[in-house]
């Protein structure tokens, strides 16, 4: 599966377009400060998008990912109240995330249930558990190190003044590169495509499809937990409605990135470009004082247009033949 294709070129052009349009219309948009700041808006969502992209390529989906994020954030709060240090809090979040992902994976693989139904169920269940545990309360007062991870720049930590890259964005890039290499350069990645393209054929060619599915659901829980660590650190508190509805934003990123919803097609380069486009686009609209709900409307329309254009090209090509 090629990582660099026509759609990725279109996305790159779109990214340049976004930069040029906002660079001209919004003074201050093209400054290093603003661009670095903008990454705070999409780094956590980008992490979720990476995991969802893998799942969709494999022919599955995880709608519960933002609810797992909430549950992991809750685990952080409880670990802190139980007197654990930063390491224990981190471990609690990661374990909770992976466990919640494993529950999804087991239900999908053991009982052969469609992942969309399972994760609609666990979405309600996990979010509901967070609501039951916290009600209208919140947990705050996390150790300094989380706030640093969520808010600080790499340069500040390393003592290099000019290195203005937010730590969150470093996390996103590191995971994106790792996931991209696995998907595009390893046998494992090829098998994920194979399972998504034709699960029966993949099974008959000796790929342990269920093991891969389970693994990807656990990975999705892990990414949700990493995003929970960063987001909880950035905003400094755990609330039951943390990251509410983010699963739809992450799926939008993935689909705009050219991953086919029916599985078997898509690239990490495309997904990351889509993350950047949507992130910078909404940041630019924010600078132009466009309200959040209108932004999401524009993103929704963009999503449909992004799906229609290739469909039109396809049918044109068919007519030409």
């Amino acid at each position, binding site marked *: 599966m090629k990582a660099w294709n026509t759609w990725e070129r279109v996305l790159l052009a779109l990214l340049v377009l976004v930069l040029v349009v906002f660079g001209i219309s919004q003074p201050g948009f093209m400054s290093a400060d603003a661009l670095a700041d903008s990454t705070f808006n999409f780094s956590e969502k980008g992490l979720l998008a990476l995991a969802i992209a893998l799942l969709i390529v494999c022919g599955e989906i995880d709608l519960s990912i933002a609810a797992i994020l909430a549950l992991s954030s809750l685990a952080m709060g409880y670990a802190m109240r139980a007197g654990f240090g930063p390491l224990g809090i981190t471990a609690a979040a990661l374990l909770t995330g992976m466990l919640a992902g494993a529950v999804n994976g087991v239900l999908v693989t053991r009982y052969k*249930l469609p992942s969309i139904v399972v994760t*609609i169920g666990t979405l309600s269940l996990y979010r509901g558990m967070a609501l039951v545990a916290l009600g209208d309360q919140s947990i705050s007062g996390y150790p300094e190190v989380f706030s640093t991870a969520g808010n600080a720049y790499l340069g500040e930590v390393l003592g290099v003044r000019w290195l203005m890259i937010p730590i969150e964005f470093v996390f996103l890039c590191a995971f994106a590169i790792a996931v991209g290499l696995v998907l595009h350069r390893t046998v494992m990645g090829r098998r994920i495509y194979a399972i998504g393209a034709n699960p029966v054929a993949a099974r008959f060619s000796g790929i342990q499809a269920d093991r891969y599915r389970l693994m990807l659901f656990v990975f999705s829980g892990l990414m949700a937990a990493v995003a929970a660590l960063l987001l909880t650190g950035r905003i400094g508190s755990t609330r039951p409605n943390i990251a509410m509805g983010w699963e739809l934003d992450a799926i939008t990123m993935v689909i705009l990135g050219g991953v086919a919803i029916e599985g078997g097609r898509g690239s990490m380069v495309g997904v990351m470009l889509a993350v950047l486009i949507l992130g910078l686009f909404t940041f630019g609209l924010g600078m132009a004082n466009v309200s959040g709900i209108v932004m999401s409307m524009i993103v*929704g329309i963009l999503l*449909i247009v992004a*799906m229609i254009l290739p469909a039109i090209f396809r049918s044109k090509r068919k007519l030409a033949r």
Partner: protein
Amino acid sequence: MKNLLNIRREWLLLTIIVVIILAVGVRAPVFLTWRNGLDIANDSAILAILVMGQMLVLLTRGIDLSAASNLALTGMVCALLGKAFPGVSIVVLIAVALAVGALLGSLNGWLITGFGLPPIVVTLGTLSAYRGAIFVASKGAWISDQDIHDAIKGLPREVWLGLPALVWFAFVVVALTAVFLKLRREGREIYALGGNPHAATYVGISVPSRLRLVYTLSGMLAGLAGLLWVGRYSIAYTELAAGYELTVVAACVIGGVSIGGGVGTVLGAVLGVIFIGVVNGALPVIQVSPFWQQAIAGAVILISVTVNARSERRAGRQILERQGVVA
């Protein structure tokens, strides 16, 4: 356990609902009163209307995630219309609600069939787009109690033959859906194409036109639900019913409508709605925090699909055995 799975799942669900009602009734007799029953029916009526539309879509292997946004947008349009023209009659408002909802729904259907796009992606897009359109239409303002047209507010409070109007609306919609699916040719074709789209095409069913029909109907019912919602809670704002689409899908799944298409009955779906209504009504009565609602709904979805999958697998094995004997 084996026998338990053998009986039809509608009866199983009905039994569970009755058990819950009796168990709660023993602890709090007020739960068994006619008044409380009416309250629950009133609360469930709008959900029932939405579920009928969603069921049609699910039967075709699709999904309509934009239903709640459609509801809110149509509700806002009706509220604005009522505010701008105080003389407008309720018949006109209902017609407008049905028309606007159907228009928004048909846009989904047109995008799905016209470009061969997956329903989940299209309705995910229109979910955001319609939601944003509410903000644009209302300029972000709330339309509160005093600005809602009296006819809109009055409609859900009307009582006909001892039953609230909302319940009558739900009855009519459910009855029409049942007739449509059981007796109309288009209804039977929806089951056929959900069961096997390719086979449906070969026997001459026009799949795209049936798909456009179900998305239009789903939108139309969402529009009607929007008018009723705005009337019942006498408020219209951008975030109205946000996230409710998942409750609608949940009710369908609990009622045994398969996401995989072709499987599901009106009776089952209605029982799914009643189940959610009864659980939500029971929690405050037995003094459990309403925060439990969501977690319980989630657990019930998971349990019911797991039970479903088991019974389906059993049926599959039986067919295999019979084939073995023939060979």
